[in-house]
């Protein structure tokens, strides 16, 4: 599954990203030859296809942060500074079919961070998501398919301030709950696949070191355009955009404390056996002024191996 999202350390982006990821995780399709089924797996390999009952996926992500978006949207490269950091993550993802049109997914992340010459790791925030397909794209000839997405991220990871590492590399979680609701609109046309996802993420407030922070609704949009080849491989381009307004810190809202991040990527899928599929992606945040705000910018790769049962 592709998560074009930045950092684990940043409280809400991370939680919302995890929610987004899980929402995407409920999005996968099998390695079938048709765009209707292979398309979804381009961005979410663990999503169950109609004939599948459950699936298990192992995913690895590696990300390198290379720059910073300031509060005003300006971009500064980390070149020649000590600010670079690397994030690595391994996820165990499990999907179950609850009904013909409903499925639920669970993601258990293990997070590692390298910063200031120090590595830290631990269990991240566990995420549960669900998906209900009112209309599958394959069922529709003119109109697109439509699904409702929901997810909850639980603060099972260690938040910044709860750890002991001066570099906070042992911070693996957000420290708060996140609830995500979204819609997925999908369209297939021959071998072409397209999808547009919109999410709203609500994060609970969190208190640490005597400071209480609450967050406005975070909006995320994901657009995917892909092509499914005759050998059942598939490839797609995607764009992900995330925006959130100013936070509220101890009752006041510091101006310029909102978030923004724009990510583009290429993702591919390759069926390695009847019930196995391998997928991967390469992505980068758009490192140009105004495409981000208060976020580190980086690039990364993902690789996922999925086994599905019918």
């Amino acid at each position, binding site marked *: 599954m592709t998560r074009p999202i930045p950092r684990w350390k940043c409280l809400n982006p991370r939680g919302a990203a995890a929610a987004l990821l899980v929402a995407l995780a409920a999005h996968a399709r099998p390695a079938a030859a048709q765009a209707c089924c292979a398309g979804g797996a381009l961005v979410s390999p663990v999503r169950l296809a109609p004939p599948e009952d459950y699936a298990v996926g192992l995913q690895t992500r590696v990300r390198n942060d290379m720059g910073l978006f300031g*509060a005003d949207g300006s971009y500064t490269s980390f070149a020649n500074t000590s600010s670079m950091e690397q994030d690595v993550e391994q996820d165990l993802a499990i999907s179950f079919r609850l009904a013909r049109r409903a499925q639920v997914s669970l993601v258990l992340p293990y997070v590692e961070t390298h910063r200031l010459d120090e590595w830290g790791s631990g269990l991240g925030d566990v995420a549960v998501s669900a998906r209900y397909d009112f209309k599958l794209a394959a069922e529709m000839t003119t109109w697109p398919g439509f699904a409702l997405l929901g997810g909850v991220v639980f603060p099972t990871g260690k938040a910044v301030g709860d750890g002991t590492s*001066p*570099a906070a590399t042992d911070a693996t979680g957000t420290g708060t709950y996140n609830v995500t609701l979204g819609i997925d609109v999908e369209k297939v046309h021959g071998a072409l696949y397209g999808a547009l996802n919109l999410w709203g993420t609500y994060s609970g407030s969190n208190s640490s070191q*005597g400071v209480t922070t609450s967050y406005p609704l975070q909006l995320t949009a994901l657009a995917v355009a892909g092509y499914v080849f005759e050998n059942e491989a598939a490839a797609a381009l995607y764009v992900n955009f995330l925006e959130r307004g100013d936070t509220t810190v101890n009752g006041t809202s510091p101006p*310029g404390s909102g978030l923004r991040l724009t990510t583009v990527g290429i993702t591919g899928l390759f069926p390695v056996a009847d019930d196995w599929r391998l997928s991967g992606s390469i992505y980068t945040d758009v490192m140009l002024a105004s495409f981000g*705000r208060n976020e580190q910018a980086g690039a990364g790769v993902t690789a996922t191996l999925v086994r599905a049962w019918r």
Partner: protein
Amino acid sequence: MDGRIAFRLTVASAAILVAGCGQPPPPTAAALVFPGAPALTMASASGGLNIGLWWSPPQPTVGYDATQLAITDTTGAPVTGLTLAIIPWMPAHGHGASVLPTVSEIAPGVYVATPLDFFMAGNWELMTAISRPAGDAGSASDAGSAGAIDDSADPTLEVP
């Protein structure tokens, strides 16, 4: 390969791995230097105090940094005997730092806070509570009650 040599190589490799797996020492701040004019000047929340801030290093970096605060009243006189509680905070991300700084008054009205644990790049805020015991009003115009917070200031900086 001879068995004993292989065993020794194994032990040596394990020793190297174990040595390399220890928790690295915390980042250390460079020698504190606060040259020239303050990098930032601001009024406290009440407007009763003027605060000049210097960073060390002068261009803040990821790692352990420090700040010097020169606090004066509205007449320009240094305000002594203050207690400053500083929490480095990233308002956009909703978290602080793992290590809180200690603050000491190194000259009348001049306070140094170290370390500032800027463990990642981004926009940081120094949430600063300023208090002064009753009966020790210094030169400030408003004497607070014992233990009460007289004032506050939240200077911000961007760590590249």
